[in-house]
């Protein structure tokens, strides 16, 4: 736990840097937009309409949308700082544009008439009259935007930009509430601190104390600069290891990372990547290595619906990934993490055929992506499944839902330690509707050309049994006596003799 908490300062620095960069960019864009919106009401309606529309997009989705957009544009990193920066900037625009525009349109007409009457040019009027009078309202907008941005920046974790959200997502996943709390308090602390400094700057402007304003803004700039210090000190290349948003992924990422550290590499983690984002990230070189699952690539990336034997499937994926995306499949780790329908113990339903008959009276609890995945479509087609209801949960809460009876069937994972621990019934798939889900280690085009790195990771192939993986997962997922993914990774290394 403490080793995870030790990441707080570094993550807070990244978080602050991202949020302040987005805020600065938003201010730079919003000020002229606000002026234009006030001068030309027709343009203003369009600008404010778009900015409001952006606000209605959930921030998580807004961040995720920039990934395909940047991918489509090409030539720029589609993951990490850039998409997070752009999404947060868009998100921060509305309060600033709106306040600047309403501030300007709400100015006393007599003051404008006086400014015109004594012969101010449009520029002088803006600089000496309109800007200082609108400043308090504009600053209120900037403060709102700052707090929103710092809050929403926690979601940048999902597009591979480290932030305090790393702690929140990892903690939520592994039910390590101290981590969640550390992430939340860290983000709240940053928001309060930045808001307080902006409040001082605002008060300084309102009370004609430029030294207050200068000191507050200077301190903010200094803090942001200090937060960016790690970026310019470490010019050496770091190996970036990706992980999707569940315990097994965190553990395997640490297992890979530990081996690379022992081989003399410096390692960074990108935790909590969305499933759709991860493969693109390794192909684009935003991450160097991560573990994915054969069936996910098979149906999600390759759009295949046939179900070949597992070994054949892995070979076909290796060939396809190398040929079309330059990604190297270093090897299968030895265990499978398949989607498996699981039910409470002691029921009569044993197979998916049985389930199809009982389904109209049952409720399905699925993980967050399952209902949109092609595997679900395939199973539904093959067995004619029709449930009374289907609810997506985050994986941890999915098991809780099954336990409490809110769900009767869940889309479990075969390597999940909770299946054995809670003696759940895993339904068989007699029609073989679902493809194999061998865990496979994928390397980016650059990483694959580094023989030392390949040599350090090759021993992982075929070494991890499903029993070992379940046990390691359960160490992190269980309610009592849970350990951190780092500790579970060390345990797994010892257990498998790595």
């Amino acid at each position, binding site marked *: 736990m403490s080793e995870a908490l030790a990441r707080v300062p570094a993550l807070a620095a990244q978080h602050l840097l991202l949020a302040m960069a987005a805020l600065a960019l938003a201010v730079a864009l919003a000020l002229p937009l606000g002026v234009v919106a006030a001068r030309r009401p027709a343009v203003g309606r369009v600008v404010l309409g778009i900015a409001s529309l952006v606000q209605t997009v959930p921030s998580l989705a807004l961040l995720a949308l920039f990934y395909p957009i940047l991918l489509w544009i090409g030539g720029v990193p589609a993951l990490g700082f850039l998409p997070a920066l752009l999404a947060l900037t868009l998100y921060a625009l509305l309060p600033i544009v709106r306040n600047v525009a309403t501030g300007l349109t709400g100015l*006393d*007409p*007599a*003051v*404008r*008439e*006086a*400014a*015109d*009457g*004594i*012969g*101010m*040019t449009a520029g*002088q009027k803006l600089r*000496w*009259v309109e800007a*200082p*009078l609108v400043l308090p309202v504009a600053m209120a907008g900037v403060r709102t935007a700052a707090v929103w941005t710092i809050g929403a920046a926690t979601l940048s974790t999902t597009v591979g930009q480290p932030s305090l959200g790393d702690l929140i997502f990892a903690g939520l996943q592994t039910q390590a509430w101290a981590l969640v709390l550390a992430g939340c308090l860290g983000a709240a602390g940053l928001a309060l601190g930045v808001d307080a400094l902006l409040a001082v700057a605002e008060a300084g402007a309102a009370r004609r104390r430029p030294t207050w304003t200068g000191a507050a803004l200077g301190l903010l700039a200094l803090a942001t600069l200090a937060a960016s210090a790690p970026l310019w000190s470490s010019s050496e290349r770091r190996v970036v290891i990706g992980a999707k948003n569940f315990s097994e992924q965190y553990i395997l990422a640490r297992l890979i990372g530990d081996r690379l550290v022992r081989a003399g590499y410096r390692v960074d983690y990108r935790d909590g990547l969305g499933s759709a984002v991860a493969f693109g990230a390794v192909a684009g070189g935003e991450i160097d290595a991560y573990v994915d699952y054969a069936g996910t690539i098979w149906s999600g990336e390759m759009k295949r619906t046939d179900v070949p034997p597992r070994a054949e499937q892995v070979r076909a994926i290796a060939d396809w990934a190398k040929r079309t995306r330059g990604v190297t499949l270093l090897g299968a780790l030895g265990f499978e993490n398949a989607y498996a329908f699981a039910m409470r113990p002691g029921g009569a339903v044993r197979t998916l055929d049985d389930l199809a008959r009982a389904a109209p009276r049952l409720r399905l609890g699925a993980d967050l992506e399952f209902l949109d995945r092609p595997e679900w479509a395939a199973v539904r087609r093959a067995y004619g499944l029709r449930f009374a209801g289907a609810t997506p949960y985050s994986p941890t809460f999915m098991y809780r839902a099954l336990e409490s009876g809110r769900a009767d069937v869940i889309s479990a994972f075969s390597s999940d330690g909770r299946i054995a621990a809670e003696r759940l019934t895993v339904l068989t798939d007699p029609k073989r509707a679902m493809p194999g889900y061998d865990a496979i280690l994928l390397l980016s085009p650059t990483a694959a050309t580094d023989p030392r790195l390949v040599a350090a990771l090759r021993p992982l192939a075929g070494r991890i049994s499903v029993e070992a993986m379940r046990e390691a997962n359960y160490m992190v997922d269980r309610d009592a006596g849970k350990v951190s993914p780092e500790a579970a990774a060390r345990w797994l290394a010892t257990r498998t003799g790595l």
Partner: protein
Amino acid sequence: MPARTGPALAFEGVTKRYGGAAAVDDVAVRIAPGEFVALVGASGSGKSTLLKTANRLVVPDAGRVLLDGADVAEGPAWRLRRRIGYVFQNVGLFPHLTVAENVAMPLRLAGVPAGDRVAAMLDLVELPRALATRMPAELSGGQRQRVGVARALASEPGLLLMDEPFGALDPVTRETLASAVRSLHDRLGLTTVMVTHDMAEALLHATRVLVMQSGRAIADETPAALLAGAGGAAAQALVAVPRAQAERLAAMAGA
């Protein structure tokens, strides 16, 4: 005798329409240097609109305005306006600036150092110099309008335009200020055009009264001529109000 004299101002066939209606309808007036002209008329008679064509706050649809023979439409508007003092009913002091900064703003625009000019301007409009550091919100209505006049005259314009300048003030302040402005007009040798709906104010302070109705100038007389019955029926109807009031007051005082 003033050291200098304000410019001549001429309106030539000035017309301004809003929608279909003419707010100002083909007005031609020549104002000589040093005149104090009152534009009088009911609300909507076009007097304010006509005044504002002189400093281009309103651009006429037809006709032109000449300042010392030069068309005001030439060159940028801000350059014209810096040569013209402008005072209006709502004053429009800059609320974020002190009295001194407000008064000095025209000098700042002209790039002239303020020096002791602000103090001199406050003296001119009979405001205590101690007010220089106050903010506009701390002043009374009369004080604010005095600051407005000081600001309008700070860069020594020859022409002073006033749009209902004392309309929002109480009668005592109004009379004091109007007299003060008239004496400034004389001392500085200004050309002054003042819009007012108050015929008594016009008769008492102006050297010439222009009566407007429905966008047209219907009478153009000296105060003495108006009081003697010149200018036509509509102008005389306006003169009749203060005259009747004065007669009733005199009768009450005599009784």
